[in-house]
């Protein structure tokens, strides 16, 4: 297993010499082999096929696992991240002992244990407009298991702009209890037809902030794997043109009909304005990962360090923890008040009343990592026209745990 870190190392993967099934494989794949839609031709297509899975996280893991078990011949795995303890809740190919290991490597080891005949190519890099066309061109199919908008546009465009014809793209997404899955291929609409403009960055919630149920990722990934398997085996039925919407909380699934190709789509429409890959991070105004952004909205004198918090209270300042209520109930500092940022923005009087009630002359905002607390400070200064002193606690509860109290729980 070779780890590919740059474009110069990309091997020829697609269109390798075809092989027939080996004797043990008849038995191994018998349960799917006897399905009339698969049969021997379908299984031979699978063992000769190649798939690129972009993202080895919550969606990528079940996709890789099921496709490897089903006998797909070659895998390209793309991820530039390492396994973190908080991944294991949903990223089921990574074990406790994999903590700190490259995700592509951890996933590849599981594949190899599961199906030693599979070829695995590890792309430990950030897929972007400098390499995507070439990486994608080596595979029969791409499965989008990414965690960010920029890479979704990138994969859409890279699959469409192939010299030798459009490469099918199986797209899945999950957040909280919800999942969405669709397939873009042949003459169907593309991701840009459905999303001509990227969403505003502040309207996009990532799994780290919004949370996600591991099994919901499993549902989405399993549906993606099913769609991928059909395409690779050469089965015509497809989700293409439709989208499955899964709501795990209400235990409901529905399939909606998507629009046809938009004539004014910049990529696949009549004018085909986009002829090559663009800068997707710039286009989306968002980075190509779902890592927490570190905001820097405030001047130094508008912030206090966690080490100075103890000296605060004597000066009639109140600490307002702006995390959502559910997070405040997980853990909180004593003598802090919980008023979620969303509530403050919607109804600032709640905070005015609290300040009056406590007879405070200063308000200090606190959150998990020190981003929302800055946003709250800026909002409050603006709202009060700076009539009340407002600051934020730099680094939030993460800094508190690191510098003051190592027994404080982090999540």
């Amino acid at each position: 297993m070779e780890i590919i870190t740059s474009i110069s190392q990309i091997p020829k993967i697609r269109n390798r010499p075809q092989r027939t099934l080996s004797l043990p494989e008849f038995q191994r794949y018998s349960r799917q082999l006897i399905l009339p839609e698969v049969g021997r031709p379908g299984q031979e297509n699978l063992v000769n096929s190649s798939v690129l899975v972009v993202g080895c996280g919550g969606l990528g893991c079940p996709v890789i696992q099921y496709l490897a078990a089903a006998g797909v011949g070659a895998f390209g795995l793309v991820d530039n991240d390492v396994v973190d303890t908080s991944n294991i809740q949903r990223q089921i190919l990574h074990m406790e002992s994999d903590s700190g290991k490259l995700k592509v490597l951890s996933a590849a080891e599981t594949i190899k244990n599961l199906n030693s005949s599979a070829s695995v190519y590890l792309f430990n890099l950030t897929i972007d407009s400098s390499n995507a066309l070439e990486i994608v061109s080596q595979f029969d199919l791409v499965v989008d298991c990414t965690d960010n908008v920029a890479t979704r546009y990138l994969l859409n465009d890279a699959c469409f702009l192939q010299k030798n014809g459009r490469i099918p793209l199986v797209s899945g997404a999950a957040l909280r209890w919800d999942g969405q899955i669709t397939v873009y291929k042949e003459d169907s609409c593309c991701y840009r037809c459905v999303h001509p403009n990227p969403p505003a960055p502040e309207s996009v919630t990532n799994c780290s902030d919004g949370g996600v149920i591991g099994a919901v990722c499993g549902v989405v990934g399993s549906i993606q794997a099913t769609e991928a398997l059909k395409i690779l085996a050469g089965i015509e039925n497809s989700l293409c043109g439709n989208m499955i919407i899964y709501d795990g909380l209400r235990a409901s699934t529905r399939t909606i009909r998507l629009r046809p190709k938009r004539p004014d789509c910049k990529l696949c429409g009549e004018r085909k304005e986009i002829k090559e890959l663009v800068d997707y991070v710039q286009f989306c105004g968002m980075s190509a990962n779902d890592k927490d952004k570190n905001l820097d909205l405030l001047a130094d004198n508008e912030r206090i360090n966690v080490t100075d918090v103890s000296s605060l209270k004597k000066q009639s300042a109140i600490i307002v923890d702006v995390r959502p209520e559910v997070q405040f109930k997980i853990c909180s500092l004593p003598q802090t008040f919980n008023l979620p940022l969303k509530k403050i923005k919607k109804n600032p009087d709640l905070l005015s009343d609290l300040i009056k009630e406590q007879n405070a002359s200063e308000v200090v905002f606190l959150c998990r990592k020190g981003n929302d607390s800055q946003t709250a400070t800026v909002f409050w200064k603006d709202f009060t026209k700076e009539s009340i002193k407002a600051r934020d606690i730099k680094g939030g509860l993460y800094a508190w745990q690191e510098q003051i109290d190592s027994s404080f729980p982090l999540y």
Partner: protein
Amino acid sequence: MEVTLEFCGGAETAHNGGEKFLTFKSDHKEPKVSDIFAQVRSKKLIDDIDALIESDKDVKPGVLVLINDADWELFNEADYQVCKNDRITFVSTLHGG
């Protein structure tokens, strides 16, 4: 005419912090979707309307509108004439994984 709006894929958070449905009586006898958007907006029937609707004719990027489980682009989008018992759904599209 009675109209029911539905919220899914996380669009629920725009309506009373997570309610799935909103039912109200339309001001029009035969409303178009744009009339419904206008009414929702002027009467503040959805608390975080700005998260979903851009104008009476359009939604925010990342939001899909369904009419009876089909993309409104398959109909007339905001000019679609709403019929009795039609189900109009806002879907927030997801991007995480």
